[in-house]
Every structure is written in C-alpha cells, then in structure tokens.
C-alpha cells in the first residue's frame, strides 16, 4: 500500500523528483521504528505483568499447598462401655454430658496399646498424648454420641496430630535445629518415627480445612464457616444489587429526562464507585447495626454493606452495556409501535445482557474479596458453629484469611495461603462464568 502510494506520487511528479521519494522513505522508516519501539514496550509490560502474576501465584501455592494434606494418627480404640457409659445410659445426651475426661482415658488406653507402652510409665504416655490434637477427646465424644452402637466395639479411629507435629511431618519444622529452639522435642520425634514405621501416622487429604469452623488449634481450624458466610453474603448481594442496579440503570439510561438532576445523579454514582470500601463499612455499622439493630457479625449485614459497594459497579456496567446498544434498534422497536417499555425489555435489554451479566459477576467477585467493610461490621469473630441463616454470626473468606494471617504458628501460615488459594479459585470460577455467560448471550446485530 505504502509502496504503491510512493511510486504513484513519484510517477505523477516525474522522474526528476527523486528527492521527494527519499524524503518519504525517511519518514516511513521513522514511523516503522516508532511502531517497533511501541510494540517492544508493550511486550515488556506484558512480560513484567506475567512475571508478577506467576511470582504471586507461585509463592501462594508453594506456601499453601501443604495445607490440603494433614497428618493423621490412626489407632484402634476400644469403646469400653464401662468408661463411656458407667451408669448404663447410652443416649446421646448422656454421652455429651458427664465427665469429658473419660474419653481421654479411652485415648490413653489405645495409645498405650498402639505404642506398646508400659502401663506404669506415665511420662511415655504423656509424650505420646502430646502428639495428638487437644480436640481428640471431644471428637471421640461427638463420634460416639452420633453413633452409640459403637459402644462395646473396637474400631480404628483417625486422630488429628497437633499442628506442630503436622509441620514436622511436612518438613517445615526441621529436625536439625537445636532441640531447645524446636517445638517438637527429640522424644516426640522418636515416637513419630515409630508410628510412621508402623503405618499409624500418615498424611491424608485435609477435609477439615473445608468443613471446620474457627479454632485456636490450627489442626482443627477450617474455612467452613467462612465459606458459608461468604455464600450467604453473595446471595444477599445478588438478590439485592442485580434487580436494583439493573432497574436503576434502565431508568436512568432509557426513561429519565436528561436534566441537571440526572446529571447530578450520574456524577454521584461514579463518585460512589470510587469511595473506599471501608467508608461503606462505617456506614453499615452506623445504619444497619447501631440504627436498625440488625445482628452484629451476621452475613445479612455483610451482604447489605457489600450490596452498597457493588451497586455502583453494576449500575455503571449496565449503563455502559445499554449505551452500547445501537439506537437504530430502539427506533426499530418504537417504529413498529412498541411502547418504550416493550422496546427496552424486548430488544434493548437482551442485547445488553452480556454486558449486564459480566458487570454483575465482576461486581460480585469484587464483593467476595472485600475485607475492610466486613472488619468494620465485626465479621471477624471467632465462630465455631455453622450459621444456619443469614442472621447468624458468620465470618467471610477474606476476613478468615486476615485472622489467620495474624497467627504465629506455622500451621496457620500454611492455612492462610490455602484459604487464599480457595478464594482465588472462587474468583477464577466466577470470572470464567462471566466469560461463559457473555458467550452464551452474545448475539450479532
């Protein structure tokens, strides 16, 4: 093309005008060089971005993947009726009540037989018990309460090892540092090695990470409550912000008169999108908790606050999607006598749908990762029980990450990264969903 033009101009001007041709060529060289330089800048920028991304994901995965496995110690437990139900009452209520230490006795007995300890060697027994999570006795109790028919039988039971033993087994507490600075002592290591050799101690998939609630003991801590809390919040956000946002945008874009007031509203919506989310947290604290007296730490309140932060995003995305629908489609609808409302809902909105859905899901993804406003409304409580309704106290994934990040134990550090991996997986899934939905709804016009 460029060659053709230059030869054309040369032929038109005549052979004597060679100077103008070379002048043209010099200009072209400069322009091509500029283009090459620009491409190089772009390539460098993309490479740097990818490097950072790989480093970020790499470090999180490297720190967190170990948390998906956990050390278990399996031992044969003799569910001795005389210890569990000394008075013969085998009802779950009776098992849950009464002296909890009796379950420790069960564990001690099975530990003694597993390690073949001298029944009178108390020190050896306590060293062995040190390896087991302090949650073992309650775990055994709920297990029996759920299934009283276990009483009187002998069964293999998987116990959790403590977080420190877990870290040692995974190699993050190393045996070559001096014993005084090590959380796992030499005598414990000896037992661990013995159990390992017998096959009683091994790594297994950590289901508790997804099902457990908060715990001060890392081996018993999980994101279960946070997952449910986040799910409830996303539901609240979706149910409130999608209809409100879409209806608001349709009104502003298609029906509202264009005057000073709607201009003001438009400017303010754009401003709201830029307001730091912690401000919404303060607003939520003042309005939903102190004024409306909604329960503190509840996912409902979290969802309401996140709705506020998400609404501007959804409105802006929806309005952009509506604006992108060619006006000729509206004219076509009105031209055959459709009412304004029919035109919008039959023709404009379906065309805008991919944009609306993408905007909504991106907004939801933002809301899922939002932390600061949730800290303001107290969604960082220590919650062990699953919330059954959005009114119950709960935590959220990002606040759970925040809380774990402040814990010193190595086992919590890996759980922090694991929770981040879970959060990122959800975000990735939502973004993929956005792409799939956009593809599905996309239509040519």
């Amino acid at each position, binding site marked *: 093309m460029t060659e053709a033009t230059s030869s054309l101009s040369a032929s038109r001007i005549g052979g004597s005008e060679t100077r103008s041709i070379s002048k043209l060529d010099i200009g072209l060289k400069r322009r091509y060089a500029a283009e090459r330089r620009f491409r190089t800048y772009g390539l460098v920028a993309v490479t740097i971005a990818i490097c950072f991304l790989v480093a970020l994901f790499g470090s999180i995965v490297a720190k967190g993947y170990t948390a998906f496995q956990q050390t278990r110690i399996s031992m044969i437990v003799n569910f001795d009726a005389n210890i569990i139900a000394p008075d013969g009452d085998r009802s779950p209520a009776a098992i849950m009540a009464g002296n909890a230490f009796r379950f420790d006795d069960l564990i001690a007995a099975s530990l003694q037989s597993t390690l073949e300890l001298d029944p009178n060697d108390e020190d050896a027994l306590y060293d062995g018990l040190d390896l087991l999570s302090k949650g073992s006795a309650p775990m055994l109790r709920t297990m029996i309460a759920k299934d009283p028919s276990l009483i009187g039988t002998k069964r293999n039971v998987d116990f959790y090892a403590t977080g420190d033993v877990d870290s040692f087994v995974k190699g993050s507490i190393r045996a070559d540092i001096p014993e005084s600075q090590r959380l796992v002592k030499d005598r414990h290591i000896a037992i661990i090695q013995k159990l390992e050799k017998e096959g009683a101690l091994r790594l297994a998939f950590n289901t508790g990470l997804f099902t457990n609630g908060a715990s001060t003991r890392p081996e018993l801590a999980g994101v279960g409550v946070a997952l449910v809390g986040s799910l409830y919040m996303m539901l609240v956000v979706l149910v409130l912000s999608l209809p409100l946002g879409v209806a608001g945008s349709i009104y502003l874009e298609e029906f509202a008169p*264009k005057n000073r007031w709607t201009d003001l509203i438009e400017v303010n919506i754009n401003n709201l999108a830029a307001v730091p989310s912690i401000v919404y947290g303060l607003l939520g604290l003042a309005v939903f908790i102190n004024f409306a007296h909604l329960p503190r730490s509840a996912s409902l309140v979290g969802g309401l606050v996140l709705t506020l932060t998400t609404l501007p995003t959804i409105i802006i995305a929806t309005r952009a999607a509506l604006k992108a629908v060619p006006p000729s489609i509206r*004219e*076509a609808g009105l*031209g*055959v*006598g459709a009412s304004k409302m029919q035109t919008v809902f039959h023709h404009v909105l379906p065309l805008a749908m991919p944009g609306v859905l993408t905007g909504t899901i991106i907004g939801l993804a933002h809301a899922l990762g939002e932390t600061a406003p949730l800290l303001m409304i107290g969604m960082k409580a220590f919650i062990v029980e699953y919330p059954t309704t959005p009114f119950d106290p709960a935590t959220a994934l990002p606040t759970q990450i925040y809380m774990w990040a402040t814990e010193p134990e190595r086992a919590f550090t890996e759980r922090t990264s694991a929770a981040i991996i879970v959060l990122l997986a959800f975000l990735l899934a939502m973004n993929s969903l956005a792409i799939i939905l956009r593809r599905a709804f996309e239509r040519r016009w």
Partner: protein
Amino acid sequence: MSAVQVATTFETVRTPDPASRPVKIHAAKVKVTYGQKEALHGVSIDIPEKAVTAFIGPSGCGKSTFLRCINRMNDTIAGARVEGTIKLDERDIYDPDLDVVELRARVGMVFQKPNPFPKSIFDNVAYGPRIHGLARSKADLEEIVVTSLQKASLFNEVKDRLNEPGTGLSGGQQQRLCIARAIAVSPEVILMDEPCSALDPIATAKVEELIDELRANFTIVIVTHSMQQAARVSQRTAFFHLGHLIEEGPTDHLFTNPLEQRTQDYITGRFG
C-alpha cells in the same frame, strides 16, 4: 431585505394535484426546535392518500425532521419541540388524548440504515402483529408473516430460512425485511427515510419497484437524495430548503417546470 419580502419569499409555491386524491395527512405551520435551534420554520403541506410523496432538498434542510414529526418519532429526542398541527385523517396527532403507540401502529417507518431486530426473519415480521394482538392464532400469525414478506417481495428469497437471523441477510434483503416488518402491522401510512441510500443499484431497483406496488394500499412518504428516484417512484414531490418548504406539486410538473428559482437551481444541480 424587508420583513415583508422575507415573508413572501418563504410562502410555499403549490401546484394542485391533478388527480385530486383525498388528503391523508394535513400539516399546518409545523415548526420544530432542537434546544435553541429552529430546524423547521413553519411547514404546511397536504399529503394525498394512496400515493407516493417524495421529499427532496439539500442535506440538513429538515426533511427527516419533518418526516419524523408524522409518527412522532421526534418525541424520543431530548430537547426536540414540535409546534403547529399535523392531522392524520382529520385527527390531530399531537392531541394529548391520542396514544402515540397507536399512532405508530398506523404510521409505520422504514429507516435509512436497515435495522432488523437481532432475531429470526420470522420473529422480525411477527413482532409487530404480536404486540398489537393482530393475530388470533398461530396460523393467523404465520399468514400475516407470509403475506407481509410476499408484499415486500422477499418471500421467495427467504422462505426456506425463516428461522435464521434477519441480520444474516444482505443489505437490500434486510431493507425489504424492514419494509415487511412495517407492512405486517397493516399501517395506513409508511414513512421511508432514504430507504435506498445503503443499497446497491439492483437492490434499489427492487425496493423502488416494491414502493410502486405498495402505493395501491398505502400512503407513502419517502425522503430521497436522488432526484431520479423521486421522479421514478413519486406522484408528488416537495422541495425543502433551509427548514422551509419551498415548492410542492405533481412530480412531473416540479421536475419539468419548477415555479421557484431555488427549486430550479437544486434540480439542475446548481447547489445542494
């Protein structure tokens, strides 16, 4: 120039209709303002029934603006204001009691750029009858669609792919689809704003042929930039200039011996 002279200069020159068809649309002193800017300065015209009336004139003279007044499409433009009266069959269309949706069902429109809905060919044509409840049954609806497509002389080309998207047709076919869509609601008037400007000569010839056939049943108003087209399809022609209706009369009369100097200049290509 004195005020009196200005007033007389912009008096529309009219030549009566030799066929003396009944008046379908009567417009008197129609002024349109966009914000502060007056785009039409008082247009009065009678448009006859079951005939093709062409609007010609240089770009920006207000042809589209006037056309869009007839089905109140200007209502949708923020800041547009219409004064004067336009009557469709003796009924003022700007009467607050008149339903604009009903008006647009009676006065259909075909736009400059073909704008089929991103739906199937069938649904494009069926949309109007559906929302107006014109078909009592599925068979009824199918019949309306088929006859509309036939009237728009498109049926034979698309009869095997009624369920394919209307946007997949060629430009000329799309424009005929839009005409079929307008016909399907059985309007009395069809407004066409440069319907052939996006089409090649063959497609244009087809649409022109179609317009000539439609004249038997519909009142047609067409805006065109092509003098030849106006001469070919219309019975009456109106010449607009700078927001004024300068001259209006039977097409052959206006093109052969225009009474106004400006009309003469325009049709001989001296400006515009």
